[in-house]
């Protein structure tokens, strides 16, 4: 059973086609990292899933039912763009209003629990408009968690969060999928953070799904590289460039050799060319680098 199954989804805004036959499958119990450039159609897809905008065509199923089914939609938590709170009401009242919307029985207890999860119980009496960006984001997450949603749709939930906020967010999301009944769709530009929690990925571009994969598949798709530091970095780089097709210097000041087989081979080769290697390691490219590579490859095509 998939939490979300989208087939041939299209959405036109006037003459602009935002989604061009998008297919997407989110398995139940996954944290699905939804990645794409600005304007690629992530938010549009999420809004359609949540019933906030109407698709021009295609089919959307949530837990095997049509996405307009009221019973399924009652179990969806959402944080899209910004938390939907009334600025002049207190955090507590905003949360209680959402609890009433969800028809939660022990509303006060549930609200307290949700605020505690995001470490915002101390801000319950503050007016929402007086909260900082990071606090608002946490409140939005707490609001999305109310009513035990089986599907959480979070659009850029990490925006404005400090290091502690991001850690809490990671803990909360990884915690709620443990029972296998909860599913989370997260879109974010902070790919490093996303890589720490996502179990599945979907990469969207120009309204079409480029690829979908599990975290393990991504791991095996991410190319390995050998990173090294040498006494004479310029000479090392020019020597390596003569032998290997892709040699780059990264932000940390390492020379990366992408198609090397063994580090020993590189060390020996450089030694033969009069370059002494100080430090050498092998690693895999990150999600961010994989994504940039993928985008660049599509650009070239």
């Amino acid at each position, binding site marked *: 059973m998939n939490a979300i199954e989208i087939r041939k989804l299209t959405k036109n805004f006037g003459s602009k086609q935002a989604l061009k036959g998008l297919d997407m499958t989110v398995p139940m119990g996954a944290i699905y990292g939804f990645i794409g450039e600005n304007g690629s159609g992530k938010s549009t897809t999420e809004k359609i899933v949540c019933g906030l905008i*109407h698709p021009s065509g295609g089919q959307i199923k949530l837990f095997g039912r049509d996405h*307009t*089914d009221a019973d399924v*939609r009652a*179990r969806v938590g959402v944080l899209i763009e910004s938390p939907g709170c009334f*600025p002049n009401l207190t955090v507590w009242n905003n949360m209680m209003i959402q609890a009433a*919307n969800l028809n939660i029985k022990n509303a006060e207890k549930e609200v307290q629990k949700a605020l505690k999860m995001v470490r915002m119980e101390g801000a319950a009496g503050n007016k929402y408009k007086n909260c900082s960006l990071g606090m608002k984001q946490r409140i939005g997450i707490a609001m999305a968690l109310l009513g035990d949603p089986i599907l959480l749709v979070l659009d850029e939930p990490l925006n404005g969060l400090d290091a502690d906020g991001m850690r809490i967010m990671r803990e909360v999301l990884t915690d709620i999928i443990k029972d296998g009944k909860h599913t989370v769709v997260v879109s974010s530009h902070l790919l490093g953070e996303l890589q720490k929690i996502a179990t599945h990925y979907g990469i969207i571009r120009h309204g079409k799904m480029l690829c979908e994969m599990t975290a393990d598949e991504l791991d095996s798709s991410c190319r390995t590289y050998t990173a090294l530091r040498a006494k004479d970095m310029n000479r090392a780089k020019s020597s390596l460039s003569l032998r290997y097709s892709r040699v780059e210097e990264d932000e940390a000041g390492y020379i990366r050799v992408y198609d090397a087989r063994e580090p020993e081979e590189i060390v020996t080769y450089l030694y033969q060319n009069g370059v002494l290697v100080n430090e050498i390691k092998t690693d895999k490219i990150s999600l961010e680098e994989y994504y940039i590579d993928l985008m660049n490859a599509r650009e070239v095509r």
Partner: protein
Amino acid sequence: MEMTNKIKFKHQTFCERLKSMLKVDFRRMFTSSLFYIMAGVCLVVPILIVVMTTMMDGTVSVDPNTGAETVIEAFDNVWQTIGSVSGEGSAMSMDLTGMCNINLVYFFAAVFICIFISDDFRSGYAKNLFTVRANKGDYVASKTIVGFIGGAFMLIAFFLGSMLGGAISGLPFDTPAGTSGIVMCMISKIFLLAVFVSIYVLASVIGKQKLWQSLVGSLMIGMLFFMMIPMLIPLDAGMMNVLLSLVGGALFAFGLGSASNHILKKTSLV
């Protein structure tokens, strides 16, 4: 309860959904300042109108260009702020007593409902609301009921304000309409609110976050019906006026409510 791969989806009836939606709207209404400000305005405006017109009674103002004289006339009795007895000229007139009376509340209600609904969309709360509410009918029904009750509070506040204003300025409380006529008149006016509320709800769901669009639309359409209130509900109203208002209100609420529901279903909500 239905099982889908071990996930239980609880089916909620329309009544359950409406109950929870009403909880949301009543909580919002009673925790935000908007309702209290509007009710306060409805209480203070009649006091100001009655006291100031009484103080200025008989004052003559002369137009410097034409030399035309205008004499300011105060209310003859307190009940003129509520309505005019049928057959009296002022029931149809657009002078001070015809305009500055309880019917102003129908306009104040437009402001209240338009702000109340557009706040859902402006704050982004509509995203939370409509994600978990696939049936838009709950929203329209709840807004109509809450708008109606909020408007009724405002009508009562205006009524009380008129009494206070009359007592302060020493206006007589005698009327040929009788107590039952006044009670029927107030009940009819409250029922007639449903007509206006459904118009305002429709204009607001069309305008969504565009408050000015909702307000202008509401006031323009409301103005057409506003002219008919003095004719439909005189101060000496009877059971027929009550029934007409009730049926009219119910028909408008149902008809325009369906239209509002259709618009919410067919348009983007963010």
